[in-house]
Every structure is written in structure tokens, then in C-alpha cells.
């Protein structure tokens, strides 16, 4: 998905893990996924570069769909769809 398409998504849950380092963001995502309904979108904010690799890999392994990410204003925004 393009950055514009990602920004247009309606998130059911926003996980703000900016300021924490690995494995903080991944743990936050793992803990918060229960709050997202099936088919819902999770938006993750992270300033940790490792998150860009950890979250897509984790999402794939858990059976969720990774939609994409973009970097803006010094942090990453990632999106996944819960299956």
C-alpha cells in the first residue's frame, strides 16, 4: 500500500511505543493485538528501527496481514490487519 493509502486507513487500535527500544514495541504489539477485532487495523508508532523488521515477521508468523509502513517526523508508522 502507498503511504497515502496507509494514512487513509481507519485504525482500531494505536500502539505508541515511541521512546522504547527492542523488544518493547514488539511486546506492546503482542499485548495489544487482543484489543483489535478480527479484520481490524492496528497502527504502531515506533522510533526503533528494529520494529520495521520485527513486526512484519511477527505478523506473518501469527497469521496477520502486514499492510506497510512509512517514516515521517522521525518515527515509523506501521499497519497490520488482524486476521
Amino acid at each position, binding site marked *: 500500500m502507498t503511504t497515502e493509502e496507509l494514512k487513509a486507513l481507519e485504525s482500531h487500535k494505536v500502539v505508541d511505543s515511541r521512546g522504547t*527500544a527492542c*523488544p518493547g514495541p514488539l511486546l506492546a*504489539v503482542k499485548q495489544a493485538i487482543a484489543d483489535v477485532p478480527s479484520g481490524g487495523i492496528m497502527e504502531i508508532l515506533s522510533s526503533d528501527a528494529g520494529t520495521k523488521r520485527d513486526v512484519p515477521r511477527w505478523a506473518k508468523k501469527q497469521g496477520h496481514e502486514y499492510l506497510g509502513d512509512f517514516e515521517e517526523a522521525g518515527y515509523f508508522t506501521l499497519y497490520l490487519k488482524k486476521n
Partner: protein
Amino acid sequence: MNPNLLRLKMKNHPEEDVVVESLKQRNMSKLVLALTTSSLDKLTNAGVILSGAAAEDMEVDVYVLVNAGQAFVKSQNGNVSGMADTAQSAEKFQQALDQFSTPKWTEFFEMAKDMTSVNVYVCSLAGKVAGGENKEDFIDLVDEIVGIGEYLEGASGADLNITL
């Protein structure tokens, strides 16, 4: 349950495909983490690895071996200050951890226990060296006091073995 036997059954009972797939999906891989030091850096590493494993839904058995027992005794309350890596000071290391809001090693363990199956076993010699004989002598993270045979058996059956 032997997955091969299930596959044989499936030939005549295709409806069991679902059962087999479900079992595969629930099959957690297992990490055995052996701790051999009670140093701040190694325990923090253990916590990070443990958290990652928990996020992956891995089943984890932690074996606290000889030197590591000290960190788990109740009187210590999880407070450790020594470093296995002598190239940097504990103070500087802790400052760097704090800068990134890194949880204390015991908090990593607690979070992992909340998320997945994590058992912490203290080798009986580790307990004795640290001044603890019974489970009650250790912090709540500890599940059992075990002999070295349990570690060897657990390690031989694990998908991933890490020693710190």
C-alpha cells in the same frame, strides 16, 4: 500424539484434516535458556530474549545454573549490579537502559510469563550456592528447584538452546 498416525487416518477420514492442521498451528516451539551468571548485562539479555520468545508464543524453560542463583534469591529482590562484560561499567550500562525505558530484567521475565508458558527452574546447587534450599527462598519468578538432569533432558528436547 504422533502426527504420522494422524496422516494415515486422514486418507479415509478427510474431515480430520482440520484437526491435524489445528494441532500443527498450536504446536509451540520450545526455547531452553540456561543462565550461568547473575550479572546485570546477562540477565538483561535473558529478559530481552525471553520477551522475544514470548511474543513468538514459544514455550520457554529457563534453567538457573550455578552462578546465576544469586540473582533469584528473595533477599536480593532481583537487584543485581555486577557485569559479565567488564569492558563497561554497570552504572553506564544501566543509564543506557534507562534512556530507552528498558524494563528491569525481572519485569521482562514477568511480562513473558504473562504472555506465554515460561517456567523458571533453579538448579539445586545454584540454590545452595546462593543460600536457598527451597522454592520459598527465591523470588516469585521461580517455579521449581530441580536437578541438573532436568536441564539436560529439557535441553535435549528443545528447538532452540541458548546459554548466557
